[in-house]
């Protein structure tokens, strides 16, 4: 009897842990954050949550991480997204400065992202160069193009000095873009939800649906799980491999719009540095297997939130400098993966020792196991 009720409670928790462990990861990190805030003598409010939800690491890196997740699910990798982000933001700013048109600016961001993603996709899928090599190459190319362009383009177009792209301020469309894709927020019942967070959540929701409820999504997983079997079931494996890079490109376009509008300017030499690595970290914290074929797109949301929350924890501890931030993020990343990989192994080792006598008891009285 006792065992039964215990199972009733633990079974769902266990299956939640197995399939959605990224939620636990986020909850644990959040609890640590609450503790550090309380320890500083402050109280944890909804404002803290909303600042996690709208931080650079969540909205910019998180949006790109959605694409990275798709790429990783197909068993590939994209190292170019940080550089692509800068180049796309540059294009976005320049188009805005030239046209002062909201629609054209948004289209420029998306189109430039799509083109950069397509370059990666075609080289990987059709020229059959390993994705690591292709995107390592384009990582170098995209950033250096941005660096070169910002020097060459006259400052009346780039909007600033020779090291920055800056949006020309003062017009109504400037205000609109800065609010809509940057600092503005929606107020509902006393809560302020930043527009960029809503945009990010919409992107996550869209891709959760694509991955889980469309045939395209199923095929993406199949290609990552066993590309040979997928091919023999009629899947155009190359097209799928290319398509995930193009999806990523589009999402980089969205992220670059946010990046540009949030600050109003972009510095090719320093903006978006290592963002590809942060995105991979968010994907991994989101419980998506690096080997491909496995993982839930919703994990990316929690992965990105977890990653940002670690940032906030470190900032809130006055004794720690910002320089040490990456150390902690690295440690947490390794720790989480260690728990996920070592956990089942430990369970097997100690669990089997416990389970064996129970299995004997079960075979002696099979009725007790049913119902």
């Amino acid at each position, binding site marked *: 009897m006792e065992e039964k009720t215990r199972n009733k409670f633990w079974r769902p928790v266990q299956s939640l842990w197995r399939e959605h462990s990224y939620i636990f990861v986020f909850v644990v990190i959040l609890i640590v954050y609450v503790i550090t805030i309380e320890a500083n003598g402050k109280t944890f409010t909804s404002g803290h949550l909303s600042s996690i939800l709208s931080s650079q690491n969540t909205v910019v890196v998180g949006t790109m991480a959605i694409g990275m997740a798709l790429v990783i699910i197909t068993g590939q990798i994209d190292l170019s997204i940080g550089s692509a982000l800068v180049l796309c933001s540059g294009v976005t700013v320049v188009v805005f400065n030239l046209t002062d048109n909201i629609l054209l600016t948004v289209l420029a961001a998306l189109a430039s992202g799509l083109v950069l993603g397509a370059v990666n996709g075609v080289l990987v899928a059709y020229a059959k160069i390993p994705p690591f090599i292709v995107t390592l190459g384009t990582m170098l190319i995209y950033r250096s193009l941005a660096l070169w362009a910002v020097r060459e383009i006259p400052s009346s177009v780039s909007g600033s000095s020779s090291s920055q792209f800056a949006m020309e301020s003062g017009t109504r469309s400037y205000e609109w873009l800065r609010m809509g894709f940057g600092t503005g927020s929606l107020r509902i019942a006393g809560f302020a939800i930043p527009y960029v967070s809503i945009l990010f959540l919409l992107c996550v929701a869209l891709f959760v649906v694509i991955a889980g409820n469309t*045939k*395209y999504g*199923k*095929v993406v*997983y*199949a290609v990552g799980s066993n590309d040979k*079997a997928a091919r*023999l079931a009629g899947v155009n494996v190359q097209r799928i491999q290319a398509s995930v890079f193009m999806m990523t490109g589009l999402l980089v376009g969205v992220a670059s719009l946010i990046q540009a509008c949030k600050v109003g300017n972009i510095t090719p030499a320093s903006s978006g540095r290592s963002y590809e690595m942060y995105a991979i970290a968010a994907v991994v914290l989101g419980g998506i297997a690096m080997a491909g074929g496995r993982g839930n797109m919703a994990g990316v949301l929690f992965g990105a939130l977890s990653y940002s929350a670690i940032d906030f924890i470190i900032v809130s501890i006055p004794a720690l400098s910002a320089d040490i931030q990456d150390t902690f993020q690295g440690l947490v990343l390794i720790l989480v993966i260690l728990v996920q990989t070592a956990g089942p192994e430990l369970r097997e080792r100690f669990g089997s020792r416990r389970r064996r006598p129970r299995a004997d008891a079960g075979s002696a009285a099979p009725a007790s196991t049913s119902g």
Partner: protein
Amino acid sequence: MRILEMTGISKSYDGNRVLNEVDFSVEKGEIHALLGENGAGKSTLLNILAGVVPGDGGTVHFDGVPYPRPSIGEMEKAGVAFVHQELNVVNDLTVSENIFFNHELTNSFGLLRRKEMIAETRALFQRLGVDIDPTRKVRELKTSQKQLLEICRALHARATLMILDEPTTALGNDEIEHLFTILRQLKSEGSSFIFVSHKIPEVFQIADSYTVLRNGELVRSGILAEATPFSITSDMVGEQYADEDVYRARELGPVVLELDRVTSTAFRDVSLTVRQGEIVALTGLAGSGASELMQAMFGAVPIHGGEIRAHGSRASGSIHAFMRRGIGMLPTNRKENSVVPDRTVLENQYIAEHNLSAGHQWIHTKVELEKYEKLKDALNIRTQGPDAAITSLSGGNQQKVFLARWLNTDADILLLDNPTQGVDVGAKEEIYALILELATSGKTVVINTLEIPEIQKVSDRCVVLYDGEVVAVLDHDQINEHDVMGLSTNAVNAARGA
């Protein structure tokens, strides 16, 4: 004098006896052919000899020394070398580095004495008449050269008994002749060989004596001069056992699948017509081109000449294009080519259909579940449910899911490549019954298999391939194990030639 004497060797896997009190011996300086159908127990016997798997009972004497529990290292040291079918050479090292692999010559600093190794390799090759540059990378060698390299490596390690597991499958005729010349020379120098082959003519060409195994039992052992290809084939297939007969003659429809002088790298000029509701079996040993022919019918390997027509219209291009013409293929090697391991039973069943209906992207789970239930009942698939992991199913049930994958697309021409591979006996019978049921309901079935009883059981016609060409097309009444085996090993021609 006997160099090897194995007596009373037994072995069971999971209570399934694969070797039963088998005696096997090899004389010094002879080439001994070990023969038997797939699953007769040859590999297990050899693996016990080489120390790869432990035997359950029996004794092994090599060179007069008893080996109660042979291990790989022990048998290697004693002078037994196993030249595997899938060659175990290191592609990224040079020829001489492979010869000296793991016992390299080094100086007192631990550095390699490369020049000496190359010279020694060259001397070894010269003695054997092998023409390979010792400094070349193994990757650049032809398969036949790799084969010779492995034999040379074994010799260099002072092996006195070499196990050659189907050494000729990947070789051309001239290369086989060259290999045989070298084997004869080594034999005259006192080396002994165990020669495993499915090709009866070459067994008569090269071997001195033979042993036939069938279903894990020793059937006969003797010298080849006293045997004929016919007697050996009979020993291999044994008494015809007729278990439950599922075959029924059926009314056939119009021609739905035509091959017109189809040619690829693996087969030549194959023409074939298949009628609706018919079950045609392709058979042939590895290298005969039967499996490649089936893949070509699905667009999975390209053809270089000829034409494939389904329902009267030409099929060419991608797999997807063949699928649109109503063709589906259950590939061989289920784990590698069919299983999408991280996905559920339902997703595995639907992957092909999703491709054909990609114009409508949204998935209607309710509709899919209904169809799943229907196919699950029709094929009697035993699973814990549509959301169970595909890997949680037994081999037979997985295979049924992959059959359902094509029934789900309403494919009416089903190509089944080794459909009962790795499937237990009970599930095999179920699959045979299913194939006949499908044909009765109007599906056209082409199956490629090496198991002759399987062909007898289900097929209306049997197409036998040898060396890339169709050598015979047999009607159901003409299909018997002896003839099919004879044709696919080319024993027929060997007898005629002798």
